[in-house]
C-alpha cells in the first residue's frame, strides 16, 4: 500500500476478476503479453490506467490490476484524452476493438491521433463485432457472411493503418495476437514513443470469425505473408530459401521481387519517419503482397498535453498567479456607498 517501488512481476498485474473471454479467444494472448511487459516499464502500478469502451476487447481493464475505466461504446479515446490532459503524469492506455474504435468511435480516434496526446492505443482487430454476437465491422472483408450480412458484406473495409496515417498519427504499428514476442516488442516501442501510439493487433475471434488472419498467423503461411519491418532494414520477407523483397516501381507502385535475382540495393529500406513510405506500405494488399507488421510510422511531433501545459505556464507568467479578487474587479466597476 505504499508508493515505493518493489520490483513488480507479471502476477502483480493480474486482477482478482475471472477472465471471461471464450476459450481460444485471441484476447487471452494479448492480455498475457501486456501483463508480461508491464513490470519492465517500471511504472508504479497505481500510475497506470486502462480505459476501454464496450466490446469483448473492452473487458480488458477488469483483468489488469491497475486503475481502469470500462466506459461506453466508442468513447474510450475521448475519456482517456480528458484524463491524460488533466493528469499528464499517468500512463494511460486505451483498449478498443474494430467496432468500438473504428465504427462508433472512429471520430474520437482520429482526433486523438492528430492531437498526439501521449496515450497508448491497442486496437484489437478481429474484423467482427464479438460482444454483440457476430455482426460485421468496418474492417470485415467484402463478402463475409455474418448475422447482419446474410448475403455478404458490401461495405469496403477500412485499412486501419492507412486510416491512422491519414489522420496524422505519429506512431502506427501492427502486430498479431499469436506473435507473442513481436507483440511485446510493439508494446515496448509504444511506451517508448512520446505521443499517441497506435497499435493494431490482429486478433482471432474463434467464435464469430475464426481464421480471419490465418494467412498471417497460420503455421504454414505466416512466413510468406508477414513483411516484418525494421527501421533502416530492407523490406524482405518469405522463407530463407525463397526470400522476397519489396521494391519501388518508377511510378511509385510496389513490386515484389525475388531476392534470387535482385540485388539488395534495389529493395526499399524501411524508414519509420517517412510518411509517404508508411502509406505506401499500408496499401500493400493481400494476397498479392505480404502484410506489413511492425512499426510503420514513428515520428516526433509536439505532445498535446505538454503544449497545453506550456500555455498554462505562459499564462501564469504573463498574467500572474490566480487572483480572483483582481479577476472579479477587472472590468468597469463602480461603487455604491
Amino acid at each position, binding site marked *: 500500500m505504499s508508493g515505493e517501488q518493489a520490483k513488480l512481476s507479471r502476477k502483480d498485474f493480474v486482477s482478482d476478476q475471472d477472465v471471461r473471454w471464450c476459450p481460444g479467444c485471441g484476447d487471452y494472448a494479448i492480455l498475457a503479453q501486456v501483463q508480461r511487459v508491464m513490470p519492465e516499464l517500471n511504472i508504479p502500478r497505481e500510475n497506470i490506467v486502462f480505459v476501454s469502451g464496450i466490446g469483448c476487447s473492452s473487458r480488458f481493464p477488469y483483468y489488469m490490476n491497475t486503475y481502469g475505466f470500462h*466506459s*461506453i461504446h466508442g468513447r474510450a479515446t475521448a475519456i482517456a484524452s480528458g*484524463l491524460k490532459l488533466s493528469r499528464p503524469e499517468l500512463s494511460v492506455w486505451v483498449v478498443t476493438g474494430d467496432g468500438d474504435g473504428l465504427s462508433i468511435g472512429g471520430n474520437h480516434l482520429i482526433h486523438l491521433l492528430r492531437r498526439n496526446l501521449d496515450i497508448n492505443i491497442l486496437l484489437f482487430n478481429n474484423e467482427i463485432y464479438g460482444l454483440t454476437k457476430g455482426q460485421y465491422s468496418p474492417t470485415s472483408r467484402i463478402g463475409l457472411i455474418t448475422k447482419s450480412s446474410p448475403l455478404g458484406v458490401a461495405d469496403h473495409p477500412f485499412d486501419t493503418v492507412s486510416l491512422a496515417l491519414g489522420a496524422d498519427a505519429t506512431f502506427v504499428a501492427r502486430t498479431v495476437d499469436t506473435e507473442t514476442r513481436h507483440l511485446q516488442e510493439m508494446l515496448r516501442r509504444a511506451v517508448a514513443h512520446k505521443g499517441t501510439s497506435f497499435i493494431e493487433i490482429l486478433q482471432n475471434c474463434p467464435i464469430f470469425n475464426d481464421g480471419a488472419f490465418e494467412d498471417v498467423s497460420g503455421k504454414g503461411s505466416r512466413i510468406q505473408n508477414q513483411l516484418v519491418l525494421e527501421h533502416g532494414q530492407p523490406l524482405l520477407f518469405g522463407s530463407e530459401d525463397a526470400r522476397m523483397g519489396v521494391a519501388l516501381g518508377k511510378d511509385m507502385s510496389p513490386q515484389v521481387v525475388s531476392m534470387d535475382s535482385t540485388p539488395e540495393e534495389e529493395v526499399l529500406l524501411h524508414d519509420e519517419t517517412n510518411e509517404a513510405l508508411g502509406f505506401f506500405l499500408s496499401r500493400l494488399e493481400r494476397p498479392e503482397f505480404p502484410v506489413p507488421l511492425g512499426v510503420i510510422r514513428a515520428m516526433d511531433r509536439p505532445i498535446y498535453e505538454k503544449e497545453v501545459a506550456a500555455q498554462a505556464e505562459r499564462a501564469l507568467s504573463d498574467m500572474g498567479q490566480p487572483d480572483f479578487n483582481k479577476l*472579479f474587479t477587472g472590468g468597469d466597476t463602480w461603487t455604491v456607498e
Partner: protein
Amino acid sequence: MAEVPSETTVREKPVEQVDAVVIRFAGDSGDGMQLTGTQFTNESAIAGNDIATLPDYPAEIRAPAGTLAGVSGFQVNFSQARVFTPGDRPDVLVVMNPAAFSVNIADLRDGGILVADSDAFTLSNIRKAGMDGDPLADASLTKRVRVFAVPLTRMTTDSIKDMGLPNKTMVRCKNFFALGLCSWMFNRPIEQTLTWIGAKFAKSPALVEANTRVFKAGWNFGETTEVFVHTYEVKPADIEPGTYTNMTGNRALALGLMAAASKAGKSMFFGSYPITPASDILHELAAHKNFDVTTFQAEDEIAAVCAAIGASFGGALGVTASSGPGIALKGEAIGLAVMTELPLVIVNVQRGGPSTGLPTKTEQADLMQALYGRNGESPLAIVAPATPVECFDMAFEAVHVALKYMVPVMILSDGYLANGAQPWKIPDYDELPDISVRYWKGDLGFHPYLRNEDTLARPWVIPGTPGFEHRIGGLEKDYDSGDISYDPVNHERMTRVRAEKIERVNEDLDPPRVEGSELGELLMVGWGSTYGALAQATEELNAEGLATGHLHLRWLNPLPVEELKRIFARYKTIVVPELNMGQLVRILRERLLVDAIPVSRVQGQPFKVGELKARVKAIVEEGR
C-alpha cells in the same frame, strides 16, 4: 465646434425627473448597437440606477446590410427603484435605419420618443425594409409618438471631416453620436465613457479622437439645438453598498465555476464544443489558463463530456457546457457519470427548440430533457439560476453538490440569462465558503462503491493512489463488493441508492422562500430566467390588490416536496409561468397532486410583464 461638455457644465435645458426609463438602441448588425447599449448601461450603473438589459441580435450569419434580418437591438431599463426586467416596451427608441424602425416601432409605447437617423431613410433603404413611403412622415406615427428625425450620419461626418479619414470610417462612428445624444438626454455621467473610448481604440489615436469628437458632438447637439426641449433624470436607486460591475450570465457562470473549483481545491477541466449561446463560457474560461483551468475544445459534444468524465475520474472537476442540441448528444455519456458516480457539472444554456430551432433565442424547454434525457433510471441534480448574476452563485453551489455527493449536476441557464447583463455586487473571494471534501479515510475493506453514510457518496480515490487500484464502468455494480453484478435484487438496491443520493442533496439547500404575499389568492411558481418578469408582476399585482406570492425555485431536482406542499396550501390558485409548453408544472402536479396551472409562452423571448399579469388575472378570475 461645440464646447466640450463636462460634469460641471451648466445644463441649459430644464431637467424632468422620471422614475425609470426603458431605452432601446436598434440598427444594422454592423452599426455597433450592442456596444452603444452596453456603454449606455455602464453610464447608468455609474449614475447609481438599478438596471436590466436585453441584447437581441439576429441569427448567426450576418445578413446583408439594411435588411430586416440584419437588425440588432439592445434594450436597457434603468430606474431609481429595483428593476427586474429590461422592460416590456421602450419609452425611447433609437433607430439607425428603416429596417430597425420597421422591426421595432410597434414596441415603442404610446407617447414614447423615437430618435431616427434621417440620413439613413433613403428610398432604397426604406424599400429594403419592406416599406413604401417615408415612415417618419406618416401621420399615424407622429400622432402616436414623438418623432425626432436627426441627420445623424451627416452630423457625424461633419464633426470629423477635417481629420481626413475615409468616409466609411467616419460613418462607422455614428453610434457614438447616438450615445452622446442619449447620454445628454438622460444626464448620464460621461467621464467613464471618454476614458473607455481612449482605452478601446488605444491602438489608433485617430479613432480615439474621432469617436470622442463624435460622442461630444452628439451630446452638444442635444444641448445646443432646439430639437430637444428638456432632459430627463433618473435618480440613483437605493442599492446595497458595495463595488459593482456589469455581469452577463455566461461570464458569471464561468467565474462561479472557477471560484468553486478553486475553493474545492480542484483543478478544473472544461470540455466543450462551441454552440450558441453557450460558447462564451468556453471563451471566458480559455482566457484564464493561469487559474488552473484547462479548456478542451473537443471534436464534438460527446467527446467534450467524455473528456470531462475522464478528467473527473482523474480527480479534476470535470465540467462541460452546451445548448439543447448538444446536451441531447451528451445523454448517453451523462448516464455513464450517473452510473460511475463521478462528479460532473453540465451546463445547458437553453435556446429555442426543437432541433436547431431558434439558435439565438431564449427558451426554457429543456427541463424535461435534464430530468429524463437518458436511458434507464438515471437521476441527476438540477439547478437553475434566476438572474445573470445568480449564475455565479448557482455554479458555485452546483460544484459543491457534485463533489460532495459524487453526482452529475446540470445547470440550466438560457440565452436570456447568458447574454443579459446585470450589476453584480462583487464578492470577496476570501469570504466564499471552503467547499473542499474529503472522501476516503480508512484503508481497510476499500472498494470503489463503498458509501459515505450521510451523503451516500462513493469514495473518490484517484489514479496515482497506491494500493487502491480499482476499475469502474457502466455496467451495474455490486453494492457490497463493487464488482460487476447481474443480481436482480442488487440492481434494485443500487437503483434506489442512486435516487436517494439526489434526494439527500435537499439537506444542503436553502428552503424555498416566497416573495410577495405569504398567503393569499395566487402563487406564481417559476424557475430560471423568468425571475424578473415574475417578480415585477408580483409587485404590481400586490399593488393592484391581488394577494400574490412568488416562489422561484433554484433547485429543480431534488424538490423539497413537503415544504412545497405547505406553501401551496396557503394559496387559492397556483400558476406556473414558463417559457415552454409546461414542464415544471407537470412535475409539480405529479409530485404534489395539485392543480397547478401552466402559463406558457414559446416565442423565443422573455415574458412581458403586462401580458403575464393579464393572463394570470384571467386565470384567477375564472377560477382556473
